[in-house]
């Protein structure tokens, strides 16, 4: 057995995720020595790193085949990875931007926030890039552990601490399922390399079908927990409500992104034919069922919410359902490429939209550690017309009304489902979309149609930039989706050598 050379490791392509983690350490180290009045360097350094890696990541699309793998196949540097990186970096960018002033005014301005966020982001990126179940697990924890900490960042605050512990305990619980699932799959297939698993499964060289299926199911549970799919969703509203709003905002996209990247990577690359029953894959129906339940429960329960963050929590559950619909559609070989790109595009659209919505919520939130309520939006269109307009745009996008990213994204997801022959699932999707209009419109109603103080906290600088960029992103993806669709379309998943 020859030792691999440095060149074989192909480190350059791993730079977006690895580099971000390393850069997080730098930020952490620098942050330790920053005096109070120089704290903005945290922001500058974080953003600088993110932007630089974002630009670098753009060069990583369409790499030659021999450069698409690093760390001896444990890291995949295909277009899927690049696109996930792209979304993740966008998410991190907004996460940093909307937190800066918020952390200051809620007196939780700790330097750790930025490195934690960056590390978590790198975990999300790594999940999409994992070529090995070991990497998947490590990436998952890399994504999760910082989030546990960030949720409890606001201390001493009972709600924040409670949400952190809940998240932590349940998160650890679910990772245990993932690990056990990994173990079972390994036991069944005899390898942790995704491509290798695929080949073994495909060739029928597995120890026991039941072992494999159980392993796949347990992995689905672990990842389903991350994306907040029903019935693994119950932590979501509580944690969303308790965590600091900026963290919730980041988490609502970042964790979901990581979860879906991992889910797609594992199930499409390693286990496309896990049931061995021709083109219909065993896990497809399960995911479809979960998607349906998730869409229904998320949308319906969101209606009853008064707390904005809780409502957005349920909303994020619902959107997980929509993307799961794409994942389910990806189980059909004919639709796989289309469904994967549709899911990725939707994730990007969701990133802009949901981060924008959270940015506005951050702007609305009062300094007294009370959670923003729906009534806090009353009359916002008069006091802060631009902010209200942006929020309206985000709400329309989440509902799926043109001209926004949301409608284009949903259209493709539904198209994927119809294409995969799951018209019933698309039907549930479209019906729950109407249901979602109930609660999204409620915010628009409060902003535009009701009178009220609706005063936003007076930050115009960074948060405003975040809102503005998110709005632009939401709108541009809506009218000119082709800008990113092209990339998303190239981000298809195949088992290497398969």
């Amino acid at each position: 057995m020859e030792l691999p050379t440095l060149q074989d490791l192909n480190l350059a392509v791993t730079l977006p995720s690895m580099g971000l983690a390393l850069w997080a350490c730098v930020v952490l180290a620098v942050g330790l020595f920053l005096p109070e009045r120089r704290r903005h360097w945290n922001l500058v350094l974080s953003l600088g790193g993110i932007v630089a890696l974002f630009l670098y990541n753009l060069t990583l699309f369409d790499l030659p085949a021999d450069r698409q793998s690093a760390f001896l196949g444990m890291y995949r540097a295909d277009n899927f990875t690049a696109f996930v990186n792209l979304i993740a970096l966008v998410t991190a960018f907004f996460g940093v931007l909307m937190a800066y002033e918020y952390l200051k005014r809620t007196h939780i301005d700790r330097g750790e926030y930025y490195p934690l966020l960056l590390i978590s982001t790198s975990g999300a990126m790594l999940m999409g890039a994992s070529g090995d179940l070991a990497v998947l697990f490590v990436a998952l924890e890399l994504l999760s552990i910082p989030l546990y900490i960030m949720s409890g960042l606001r201390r001493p605050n009972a709600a924040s601490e409670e949400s952190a512990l809940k998240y932590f305990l349940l998160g650890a619980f679910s990772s245990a399922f993932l690990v056990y699932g990994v173990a079972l799959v390994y036991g069944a297939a005899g390898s942790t390399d995704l491509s290798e698993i695929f080949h073994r499964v495909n060739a029928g060289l597995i120890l026991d079908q039941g072992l494999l299926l159980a392993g796949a199911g347990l992995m689905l549970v672990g990842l389903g927990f991350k994306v907040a799919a029903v019935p693994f969703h119950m932590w979501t509203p509580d944690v969303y409500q308790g965590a600091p709003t900026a963290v919730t905002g980041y988490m609502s996209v970042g964790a979901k992104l990581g979860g879906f990247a991992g889910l797609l990577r594992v199930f499409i690359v390693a286990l496309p034919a896990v049931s061995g029953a021709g083109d219909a894959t065993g896990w497809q129906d399960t995911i479809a069922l979960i998607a349906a339940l998730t869409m229904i429960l998320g949308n319906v329960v969101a209606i009853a919410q008064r707390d904005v963050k809780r409502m957005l929590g349920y909303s994020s559950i619902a959107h997980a359902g929509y993307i799961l619909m794409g994942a389910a559609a990806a189980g059909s070989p004919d639709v796989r490429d289309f469904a994967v790109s549709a899911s990725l595009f939707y994730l990007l659209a969701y990133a802009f939209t949901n981060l924008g919505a959270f940015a506005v919520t951050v702007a609305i939130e009062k300094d007294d550690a009370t959670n923003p309520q729906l009534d806090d939006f009353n009359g916002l269109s008069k006091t802060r017309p631009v902010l209200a307009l942006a929020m309206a745009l985000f709400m329309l996008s989440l509902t799926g009304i043109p001209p926004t990213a949301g409608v284009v994204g949903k259209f493709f997801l539904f198209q994927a489902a119809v294409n995969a022959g799951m018209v019933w699932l698309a039907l549930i999707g479209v019906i729950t979309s109407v249901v979602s209009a109930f609660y999204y419109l409620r915010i628009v109603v409060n902003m535009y149609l009701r009178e009220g103080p609706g005063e936003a906290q007076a930050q115009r600088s960074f948060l405003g930039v975040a809102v503005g960029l998110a709005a632009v992103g939401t709108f541009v993806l809506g009218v000119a989706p082709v800008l990113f669709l092209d990339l998303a379309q190239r981000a298809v998943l195949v088992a290497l050598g398969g």
Partner: protein
Amino acid sequence: MEPAPLNISAYVVLSAILFAMGALGVLIRRNAILVFMSVELMLNAANLALIAFARFYNQMDGQILVFFVMTVAAAEVAVGLALIVVIFRTRRSINIDELSRLKD
């Protein structure tokens, strides 16, 4: 290399029992630390399975994975205990049943 003869199912069943016990512990225990310990038990059940399979296939993959799991578990312990300490400071209790402020 031929896999060594090994009655794999016994190991798998044992790990499954351990895993189930851990899961039950999570469901039943009220003390946050005990809950967390139950999670550790689940992880170790997985480790057991991994080791057994690695031995079964006679390769390194599973064993390497075990190291990863252990490392990560250590990290979780660090974070988890810290969180529990913080909670204890605020509430003077680590009974998870009292963590019910956040609800509808």
